[in-house]
């Protein structure tokens, strides 16, 4: 079923919805000079029922956690509890203007404050800012805090170290913060090796950014040693919280020696990802960095919550207002419902699912790093290359079986990588079914490789030509 573009349904004479009429005496054309006014607005006009059908039909051409398995590595596509949506739809939150006087918006401030307290408990950090709107935004914020701290100490360190398995956002954020990035090669275990790290550490290093467990799903066992080395060199240690769900309840970044962290509320704390966003990437810091947090922070004087603009060495703002409040609200509800035991259990089941699936799938792919993983693991499909099959083909064929493929071609250090994160909300049955599907596809690779190479077949469109898109660059309907 083809769905037209809205533009293709346009007819200028179609009615709009039932809106109030402007006051005749105060119409723009009676008040403003003509050269400030626009002559026409090219936005299409279609009727309400057409709009409803358009987006309803589009919504039937998609996939989401609510439809099935979504083991997209590093993305933590766990179930998004519906109770959180109900909570975040309360008009006392949705209709609240950010400049509502403090005494009339105590509820919202309370949520932010209490979420900060909870995240401090979870991460072992001392204070949080909620301005960062996403993980990468959190990274940037934290790097700016660290930079300001170092500059304040009179240090002009300009190097950010990241492992070669790091998320792409790490070096990109470093650039935006005005740093240079140097990559440290992982060792044969897939980990940061103190011996290798030692070669990279020097007085120009401002910070080492780590995600732990790392993107291979492996816990950086030498973290205490690493922290010691970094700190001894006068640099700071930053925690990329994308994988916090692999250790929550068992290890806290603050206890591992990290000085600043970001947390992805839309990953570990299950706020829905919205087809790409919104998320939220609050940043937590140790005490010695808290004077550098963006303004305003949310404080409590024992009686009343308030916005504090008096942060002595603040880096300033990284966005307007206070952050993605409605996302915070969902995360707060999630944390409050589960409590410490529930959150810990969340981690346990996520790690159980990952190790179980790894154990089941290692027969079909190469497993470059066979140790116990945390919330995710990485396979390599290079064994398929000789058959002319790429992991991309496997991914596309999975679509035909009604499941979302894993992350592919990341991390970069694994050839033909398949990065799989099942999350704790999946049943054993779903995992077993996934294994069965993989087995089937690999059978197809042997018996009927074309069906895999030309996949997908059962989707609303066939395999899409991304190269063509980048060539023609048709990015709007004009």
């Amino acid at each position, binding site marked *: 079923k083809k769905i037209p573009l809205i533009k293709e349904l346009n007819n200028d004479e179609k009615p709009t919805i039932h809106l109030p009429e402007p006051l005749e005496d105060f119409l723009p054309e009676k008040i403003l000079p003509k050269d400030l006014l626009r002559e026409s607005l090219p936005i299409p006009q279609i009727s309400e029922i057409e709009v409803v059908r358009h987006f309803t039909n*589009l919504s039937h051409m998609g996939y989401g956690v609510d439809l099935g398995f979504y083991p997209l590595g590093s993305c933590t596509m766990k179930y998004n509890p519906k109770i959180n949506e109900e909570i975040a739809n309360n008009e006392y939150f949705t209709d609240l203007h950010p400049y509502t006087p403090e005494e009339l918006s105590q509820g919202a401030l309370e949520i932010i404050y209490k979420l900060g307290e909870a995240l401090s408990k979870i991460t072992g950090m001392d204070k949080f800012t909620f301005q960062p709107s996403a993980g990468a935004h959190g990274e940037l914020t934290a790097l700016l805090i660290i930079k300001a701290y170092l500059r304040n100490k009179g240090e002009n360190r300009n190097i950010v170290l990241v492992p070669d398995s790091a998320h792409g956002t790490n070096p990109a954020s470093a650039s935006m913060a005005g740093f240079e990035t140097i990559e440290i090669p992982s060792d044969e275990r897939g980990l940061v090796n103190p011996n290798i790290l030692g070669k990279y550490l020097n007085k120009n290093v401002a910070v080492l950014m780590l995600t732990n467990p790392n993107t291979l799903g492996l816990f950086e066992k030498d973290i205490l040693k690493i922290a010691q080395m970094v700190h001894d060199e006068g640099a700071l240690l930053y925690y990329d919280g994308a994988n916090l769900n692999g250790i929550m309840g068992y290890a806290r970044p603050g206890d591992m020696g990290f000085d600043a962290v970001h947390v992805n509320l839309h990953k570990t704390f299950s706020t829905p990802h919205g087809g790409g966003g919104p998320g939220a990437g609050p940043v937590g810091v140790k005490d010695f960095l808290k004077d550098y947090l963006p303004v305003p922070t949310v404080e409590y004087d024992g009686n009343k919550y308030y916005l504090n603009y008096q942060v002595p060495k603040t880096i300033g703002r990284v966005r307007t207002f206070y952050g993605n409040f409605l996302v915070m609200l969902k995360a707060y509800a999630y944390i409050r419902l589960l409590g410490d035991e529930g959150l810990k259990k969340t981690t346990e089941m996520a790690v159980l699912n990952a190790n179980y699936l790894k154990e089941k799938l290692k027969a079909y792919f190469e497993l470059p790093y066979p140790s116990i993983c945390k919330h995710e693991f990485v396979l390599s499909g290079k064994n398929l290359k000789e058959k002319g099959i790429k992991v991309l083909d496997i991914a596309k064929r999975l679509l035909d079986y009604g499941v979302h493929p894993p992350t592919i071609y990341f991390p970069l250090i694994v050839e033909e990588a398949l990065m799989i994160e099942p999350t704790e909300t999946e049943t054993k049955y779903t995992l077993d079914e996934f294994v069965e599907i993989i087995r089937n596809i690999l059978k197809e690779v042997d018996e009927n490789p074309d069906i895999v190479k030309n996949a997908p077949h059962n989707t609303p469109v066939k395999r899409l030509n991304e190269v063509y898109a980048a060539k023609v660059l048709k990015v709007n309907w004009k």
Partner: protein
Amino acid sequence: MTYFPHTPQEIKEMLNTIGLESIEDLFSEIPEEIRQKAKENFKIPASPSEIDLLEEIKNIARKNIGKDYISFLGGGAYKHYIPPFVKLVSLFPTFYTAYTPYQPEISQGVLQSIFEYQSLICDLTGMEVANASLYEAGSGIAEAALMSVRITGKKEVIASSGLNPEYISVLKTYLQAQNIELKIIPLDEKGETDVDFLEKNISPKTSGVIIQNPNFFGVIETKLKDIEELIHKNNALFILSIYPISLGILKPPSEYNVDIVVGEGQSLGIPLGFGGPYLGILATKKEFIRQIPGRIVGETIDLEGERGFVNTLQTREQHIRRAKATSNICTNEALSAISAAVYMAILGKKGIKKIAEVCFSRAHYLRERMQKEVNLEITYPNSHFFNEFVIKIPENSENFLKKLEEKKILGGIPLSRFYKDRDKEILVAVTERNSLEELEYYIKSLKEVLKKN
């Protein structure tokens, strides 16, 4: 309690498959010292039940009593009508429970919706290309400034002080990080960007100039043509921050030869939500497409030649280009962008124009009544404005607003919140959700409060 679906039996079987005896074994490589600290310090009480949680948070919500007040707050976030279908779309499971559409064949719903968002933003602004969203206007403006630096190879940005002060603050943070100079241009007596001052400060070293229209004080900038000429004469880029609804009536940025349009998309069907999530709009000329930050959806064809949509130009992005990416943005505000698309589609050109006219006419009506009946002084009395304006009151604005609060009115934003010296001025915003009765009540209340003084 958690959302895991495992039975005890399954957990046992799975551990068995893995070859471990207990769940604890899955975490054995974490140093004991670290685990011990977590055990001791990781303490968060759980809610007794979903029912209790809902009740608890409802009680917290009720403390936001300002929600029930008649509100004239604006300053970058506006109380606009959201057609109910817009809200329903954001609850479509394939939209809100999906990740970024890395697998386009099963993500055509999200991708086409965002392609349409981009197209509608182009229609609204007159620009040639738009991205799939940024966080909100403040960081969006910073991204635009950085874009101008990349495109021109110069490192000096000029911003009008008509720009929302929070945006300026964000801009400072971002630019300072990369040692880019930022100059702020004052306003003239009409509340518009001082063109003479700009002329004196702009130079061939300037990479970009940022203007907001209508500006933070509600004033419509009337010399954008002159500003544009100055900017382009110096081979800098013209960056304009817009209020989307105002473009229902105001000349689109493209007609001023703007290079990069940015703006806060909240007014396009996104709830106030105490400040977020919102929507950062960014649109530009096609020639600059490779310097755009964030995601872009493009049209393509599938194996059978049928139309389809994909994320395109991903080589600009962090997951491929890493340190050399055009931005670090990964997670954006896709769902807000979809809401904005639905909003613009359901209103259409007629609806958006009408909303703009209602805002405009009610704001002008209110200001006139304030002048004529309440004898209030207006800060820029002879300037053009859209739906927001600054009034002067005879006492400290915070005190004055408190008195209005007693009448359940949020009368506006005290300018002292941003400008310490402007402590007797209030920024008043009017939208289509301020009924004529509300305007009447505001006038009446102003009279009462002023009489008491």
